[in-house]
């Protein structure tokens, strides 16, 4: 892709604006990334490595666990230390309408006029992967703007928390005493990505029982790989210092030479891999005239001539056959 060749001047002025800390330029560049606009790649490219990468902390957990409240309170603590903060709040896109209500700012109003806090709401937009890459790219833009710590919130009910975990350095899983039933279901996925566990709403009954249950479920893990459990009452600003400490310790652990090298390498690899995968998939599907083919097959399914599954299988077969031929003829 010859990204940016269309408008190098616009790309340069956006990039410059972002490095100067201009919030509007940053916001516009984020939209380009979200829309996978051709300029996005050139902007990211020209900003890459220009400023130090801020530590990225992901906050995930069940709906209503207090993620936004906690992110806002943690941002307040960071601001009190003079730290410039970036926030990305991810909410699901409706699979039926493609629309989304992004409501996390409601709990972050105390930062609404602080120009050292930049909050961006992002919809997951479809399931064809890409969320991890997009999240990472928004974080890179925030780095260029001057974020010193970037907080990413996402609701942990499916795939998006795994994508966000891939794009961040530390994953905080937020649970509540009420998560008891939900946790059985969530445990596998959520607990695996947790590097710090927050038991929020510790003012509610059942906090002790919940903590005991959490400790029991972690007991099987080898010592040293058990995530710390921090109790918080986000609405009363309790436990924030402890959370800060736990995050600092995790960051220090990450900075150990035997970890930092390989981890950084794996991150860079993952970054390249996802960029290649997306570029390839897009370019290839476009070359195959995928959308047109899709239209035809959709008609067939609606007319009852075939089922979606059979249609998909036939399409994949046909397209991979074509793909081989194209590759064989390629230069």
């Amino acid at each position, binding site marked *: 892709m010859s990204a940016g060749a269309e*408008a190098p001047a*616009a*790309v340069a*002025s*956006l990039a410059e*604006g972002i490095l100067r800390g201009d*919030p*509007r*330029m940053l*916001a*516009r560049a*984020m*939209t*380009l990334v*979200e*829309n*996978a*606009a*051709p*300029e996005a790649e050139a902007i990211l490219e020209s900003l890459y490595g220009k400023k130090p990468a801020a530590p990225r902390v992901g906050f995930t957990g069940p709906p209503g666990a207090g993620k936004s409240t906690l992110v806002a309170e943690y941002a307040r603590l960071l601001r009190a230390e003079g730290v410039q903060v970036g926030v990305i709040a991810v909410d699901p*896109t*409706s699979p039926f*309408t*493609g*629309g*989304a*209500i*992004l*409501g996390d*700012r*409601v709990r972050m*109003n105390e930062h*609404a*006029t602080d*120009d050292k806090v*930049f*909050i*961006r*709401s992002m*919809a997951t*937009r*479809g399931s064809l992967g890409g969320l991890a890459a997009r999240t990472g790219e928004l974080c890179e833009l925030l780095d260029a703007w001057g974020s010193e710590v970037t907080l990413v919130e996402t609701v942990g009910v499916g795939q998006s928390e795994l994508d966000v975990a891939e794009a961040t350095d530390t994953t905080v899983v937020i649970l509540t005493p009420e998560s008891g039933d939900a946790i059985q279901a969530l445990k596998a996925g959520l607990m695996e990505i947790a590097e710090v566990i927050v038991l929020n709403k510790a003012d509610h009954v059942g906090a002790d029982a919940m903590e005991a249950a959490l400790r029991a479920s972690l007991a099987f893990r080898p010592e040293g790989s058990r995530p710390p459990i921090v109790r918080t009452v986000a609405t009363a600003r309790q436990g924030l210092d402890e959370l800060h400490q736990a995050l600092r310790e995790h960051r220090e652990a990450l900075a150990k030479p035997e970890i930092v090298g390989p981890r950084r390498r794996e991150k860079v690899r993952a970054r390249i891999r996802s960029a290649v995968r997306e570029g390839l998939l897009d370019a290839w599907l476009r070359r195959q005239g995928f959308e047109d083919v899709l239209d035809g097959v959709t008609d067939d399914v609606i007319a009852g001539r075939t089922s979606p599954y059979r249609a998909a299988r036939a399409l994949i077969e046909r397209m991979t056959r074509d793909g081989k031929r194209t590759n064989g003829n390629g230069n």
Partner: protein
Amino acid sequence: MARKIRVLVAKAGLDGHDRGAKVVASAMRDAGFEVIYTGLHQTPEMIAQAAVQEDVDVVALSILSGAHMTLFPRVLDLMRERGLNDVLLTGGGIISKEDMGALQKLGVGTLFGPGATTGAIIDYVRGWVAEHRAGEVGTAK
């Protein structure tokens, strides 16, 4: 990926009812928009900053407190100060025809009274975006 219409839905002023705003927000979601909802008691400064950060196409304000003649112009000023000249400011509330006309002269878009359907608001927003921001990829001009 296709461009999405992004709308900031905000409740300005001191009144504590956001039912109407929430109804509009969900209708917009159902119409395929990405709606950034910021909650009650938003000051003009908060609204303008959110509009910048979220890079919205449209700001939709719900004002029931009767303070629309001060709030709409103030928000519009702050939006312009921040370079948001290509962003629609619209909204609704209990606003007289004369006030609506006066606000439109200042540069505010069409405003909607309590009887307006969500469909009418959505059609208006869609039409405005198609006319004013179509084909735009979001690059600075």
